[in-house]
């Protein structure tokens, strides 16, 4: 149960990070608060869209899915359900793989890093670690 709660909280934070980047991308938010990073360089590069959809939107969908599964998995009838644990681990694995790809692009192709993207990568990695530990416990 603790792992699902942790995943739900992390996914909610990640959802807001992804929403922030997506709202910037579609023009609702004017200036990214980026500090020393190069968020706008990353967000306005051609890699900020994938198949015509802003990359941040995939993040919104992914985190929303993780949040929904984790919160649903907290219902008393589903607490012992291993499929919920598996679904969380699968979603987190996809998220980590996607984040790795994006981090590679930032470091080696765009040559700029966006601290919000790094933050998202850290969050999804933490979710992945928690999801894997939950899987090991449920074996």
């Amino acid at each position: 149960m603790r792992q699902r709660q942790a995943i739900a909280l992390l996914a909610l934070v990640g959802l807001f990070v992804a929403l922030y980047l997506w709202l910037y991308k579609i023009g609702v938010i004017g200036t990214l608060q980026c500090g020393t990073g190069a968020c706008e360089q990353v967000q306005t590069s051609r890699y900020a869209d994938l198949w015509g959809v802003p990359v941040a939107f995939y993040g919104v969908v992914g985190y929303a899915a993780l949040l929904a599964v984790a919160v649903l998995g907290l219902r008393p009838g589903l607490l012992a359900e291993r499929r919920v644990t598996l679904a969380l681990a699968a979603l987190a694995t996809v998220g980590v793989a996607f984040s790795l790809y994006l981090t590679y692009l930032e470091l080696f192709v765009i040559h700029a890093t966006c601290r919000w993207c790094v933050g998202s990568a850290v969050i999804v990695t933490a979710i992945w670690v928690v999801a894997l530990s939950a899987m090991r416990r449920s074996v």
Partner: protein
Amino acid sequence: MKGFYYLLGAVAIGGGVALWYGAQRPAGTAPPGAATPVAATDGFRGFTLGSDTARVEVTEYSDFECPFCAQFGTVQMPVIREQLIATGRVRWRFRDFPLPGHQYSRYAALVAQCAGEQGRFWEMHDQLFFHHQWAQTGKNPRGLFRDFAKQAGLDLAKYDACVNAQRYDGRIQASVEEGTALGVSGTPTFFVNGHRYGGRSTSDDFKAVADSITKSRK
């Protein structure tokens, strides 16, 4: 378990408030810690097109968000460029006059000035007018303008530095004050050789004005 849902709710409210605050920041606002804007009231007289020796000079006070200016810039201006400016008969001067009622016109003027810093003012001018949908959506155009800058062939790092510092805000304000002193209150407003032009703003009418000035000076 209840405590967990309270915590989840608190995070949701906090995130929502932060996003709402972020959405309230206008596009042209430099983030905290950005470079101090450089006052650029440097006697700049506007970007020009055409020969220095042309007998006719038209000064246009314009607002990038104004639909009439966009119509003029996309329908009449290409003909004027081809028939009057390229032939050396008319020199064209563009002055900024962002109207206060337009949310993003001053920001648009700023990005055009930043393009001008790299010698591409007119390319940006065309991007802003030929893709004028941005002025109708009401959405923050910051990302879109950066795409325009890319299309106009700008060095984006220099463009970002210029826009974030609002480097030419002073220059834009000076243009507005100068226009106001001349009696400009709407856009586009034209002056031909320093005299306010009250005719129709079509390429044919400007051609007729240029013809009459040229003939009277022969």
